[in-house]
């Protein structure tokens, strides 16, 4: 439909030109776009409708010699008949009856008459439809602007008058909810709007899927997005907006990828800086800051960015706490993040505690969980840290500014335990062998 006059048109959108205009006049383009979406979403749509009104005429000579009679047919031909309730035709009072109602097409009457006169046709629309016209009147059963009177003067020759009037279509009843067959347009590139049922199914499915296979980071991401609305991601965004640094982050919208974070440069930084610690951690764990999954299921673009930012800075949290990427370390970081950001996915992923071995579980509940909860609660919101600006700060200084204590080095503990077990096992084996050999 033409966006200006709203008639059906075969013209199509020139994408190239549209992009050019967007680049040249970004402000006007975005204003017009906002207007259009607002218009479409909330305004009634208006459609023109054509009504042909007229008469066919034939002169008949009556057999009894009286004055000539006119055999005329008066008709109302609208371009759409599905929205017309009825047409009331008002004739000259000498006709009996002078008020004729036609509820079905063809809306016409045929009579024999003696002269010419003006006929008024009142076109009444179905419920929900209304005329957009200053001449529109309320229809007899109370619909506002439902009736339009049109006049036509009978003519010796057949007459025809064409009226073009505007028709207001009713507002669709379900404007905000959508169905699978009627998805609203995406709000940002990659956005997939989901219905409530779809979101619930995604949450449940990804929860179980990521429990069975914790290496499915895409399922964990989907779980995070599906459970973040309605309250939690909004709370996180409000926390960012309440903090001056958080506001700057939302304004600048920096992204952390392997392009924007040059690891070679970070490795050159002095020993105790955040950037160096980050690079060292990435090397130690053998991971890259590479494309974390894009956020797809959160509707508001700004909230989607907050989620993306959380995902991309997760590695920094690992770096400054020194926790490794094995399940135990991840669970400790997730517990810390839940206490700090309140995202439900972080709490739900703690269910993976069942996958730990007994000794690991013991260690988790004794040391790392208490550390995570107490530090997460008392620390500043880590989402508000502008990491790109903190790359050269001293790690200890940053930790004390945020209020985070470093937990016991998990890899060291594990290594020591492993070494001790190995030594004990070797000693046991040696004793056994000795015993077998000596018969003791």
């Amino acid at each position: 439909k033409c966006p200006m006059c709203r008639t059906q048109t075969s013209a199509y959108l020139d994408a190239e030109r549209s992009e050019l205009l967007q680049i040249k006049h970004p402000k006007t383009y975005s204003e017009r776009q906002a207007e259009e979406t607002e218009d479409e979403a909330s305004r009634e749509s208006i459609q023109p409708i054509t009504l042909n009104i007229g008469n066919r005429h034939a002169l008949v000579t009556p057999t009894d010699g009286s004055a000539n009679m006119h055999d005329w047919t008066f008709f109302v031909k609208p371009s759409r008949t599905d929205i017309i309730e009825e047409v009331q035709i008002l004739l000259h009072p000498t006709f009996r009856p002078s008020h004729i109602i036609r509820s079905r097409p063809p809306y016409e009457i045929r009579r024999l008459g003696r002269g010419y006169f003006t006929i008024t046709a009142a076109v009444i629309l179905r419920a929900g439809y209304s005329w957009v016209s200053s001449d529109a009147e309320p229809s007899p059963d109370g619909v506002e602007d439902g009736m339009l009177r049109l006049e036509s003067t009978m003519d010796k020759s057949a007459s025809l008058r064409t009226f073009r009037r505007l028709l207001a279509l009713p507002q669709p009843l379900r404007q905000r909810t959508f169905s699978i067959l009627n998805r609203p347009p995406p709000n940002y590139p990659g956005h997939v709007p989901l219905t409530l049922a779809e979101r619930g199914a995604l949450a449940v499915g990804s929860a179980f899927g990521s429990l069975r296979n914790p290496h499915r980071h895409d399922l964990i991401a989907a779980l995070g997005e599906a459970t973040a609305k309605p309250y939690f991601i909004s709370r996180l965004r409000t926390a960012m907006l309440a903090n001056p640094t958080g506001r700057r982050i939302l304004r600048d919208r920096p992204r952390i990828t392997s392009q924007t974070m040059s690891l070679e440069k970070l490795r050159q930084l002095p020993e105790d800086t955040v950037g160096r610690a980050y690079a060292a951690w990435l090397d130690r764990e053998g991971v890259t800051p590479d494309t974390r999954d894009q956020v797809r299921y959160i509707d508001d673009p700004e909230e989607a960015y907050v989620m993306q930012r959380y995902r991309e800075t997760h590695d920094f949290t690992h770096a400054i706490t020194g926790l490794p990427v094995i399940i135990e370390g991840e669970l400790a970081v997730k517990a810390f993040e839940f206490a700090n950001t309140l995202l439900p996915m972080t709490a739900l992923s703690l269910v993976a505690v069942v996958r730990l071995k007994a000794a690991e579980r013991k260690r988790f509940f004794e040391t790392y969980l208490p550390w995570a909860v107490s530090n997460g609660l008392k620390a500043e919101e880590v989402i508000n840290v502008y990491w790109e600006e903190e790359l050269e700060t001293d790690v200890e200084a940053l930790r004390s500014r945020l209020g985070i204590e470093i937990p016991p080095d998990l890899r060291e503990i594990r290594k020591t335990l492993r070494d001790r077990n190995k030594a004990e096992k070797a000693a046991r084996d040696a004793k056994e062998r000795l015993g077998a050999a000596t018969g003791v």
Partner: protein
Amino acid sequence: MASTALLRRVLALPPPLRRSVYSSANSHNGAREPDIYDVVCIGGGPVGLSFVSALRSHPSTRLLRVALIDSQDLSTSRTTDDTETYSNRCSSLTPASLRFLNQIGAWEKVKRDRAQPYHAMDVWDGVSGSKIHFDSVDQQQTGLLDAVAEMIPGSRFQASRRKYEMEDAVVATMCENSNTTSALLQRLHDLSAEQLGTQSELKMLDKTRVDSIDLGSEPKDEMLLDLSQWAIVSTSHGQLAARLLVGADGANSPVRRFADIPSPGWDYNQHGVVATLHVDRQLTVEDLRTAYQRFLPTGPVALLPLPGNKASLVWSTTPQHAAKLKTLSSTDFIAAINAAFRLMPVDIGYMLSSTSSTNPTDELAWRGTATPASSTGLPRNFPRVEAVQEGSIASFPLRMRHASTYTGHRIALIGDAAHTIHPLAGQGLNLGLADAQSLAHQIAYGVDHGMDVGSCWTLDGYNNDRWAKNNAVIGVVDKLSKIYGVSSGPVVWGRSVGVEVLERLGGLKGWVMGAAAGMK
């Protein structure tokens, strides 16, 4: 010799003059008989003036001896004719108040082109975005069939029961206080013209401070008047003894203090910021106007329509925010106002906090694009504020006080002396006008039945009529301000659900509107 001649001259005077010479000669100790009035009204604001006008317009009370005392100069309370400037003290007058002003003949003296009736109200929640729309359609009689029709949206049945807006379907009228006051003064002047020089002439003592109010002294002997139970008002123009002393003298009423009537209540820890604004739409008399109000956690912000492209702002907010608003430049102030209606509460709080480093105009430009109107509940035809009238930004502290009783022995309180209320419902002046109407009616009843207008037999009727009604309105408004002061949690959810439900129940909405409009 000279004194004997003088004495003979004095004795030759007619007795009344002789007595007055004698008493003025003895007035060195200042003990003059106080002037006795039937009604002394202290306070020349809209409520006091409307009360006196009501007395003077009613045939029963027209001949009472009435005095009106005010410390301001009442003759200069003329409202300007300049259509470009509007005073920042405007009040919203309900249809009931307008009927009262009409009855006493004052409304026809109001400059009607400076008064703006409005036909709809859009109220929405700043935290959750749930909104409610009031207009005259809901006030028409509804019955069971209409309730059933509402439940089947889009049906022919509902379409057939649709209502139309009535001819004169005004929710309330915005009028500058100076406009109302000058109309009342004009009316009093016209009424006094008929009774010039008579005993029942209205005594208008403006520019007069009340020095003190005391009970009369014990009479020295039985033949003198016993005014020991009467209130004597001492002013620079002499003393007035009041058969009935009416306090219309504002929130810190000296009359209420004299009567020892306690007025419990609390301060809201909010300041009301008022200003006159220019919006981006030039509207005419034929256009339907809407009043807008958004409830933020720090307090409600309202945009009330004035003629043309003007609007009146009333924003109740914390004292810190109010102080910051008054220090902003014009452009920043306008950005802050637009933000108050369009942005999320956290953004508004940040904009007005002392630690914000960016200026409000930039903040609004950025956050405006990131805050979709559908999520904040902004009404579709909400205008954009473009300019603020020079020198019209002011603020005042908000409090709630309600006198324990409105009457005492020969004392009555009306208007702000009796009650102060939060401005979120625009009821303050309307309650005062209703008080004035009720008290005048009660005095007329007393006069018709030969009662002493200052006795409790007359005054109890006024107390019974008004105290409970005012208490209910003050209570509801106070609870509304408390409910909307919460920014998260179950209260937000509860109030949003309540608003959504009320929005769909046309009959109940109509009843609420009727109660707010003062119709009984």
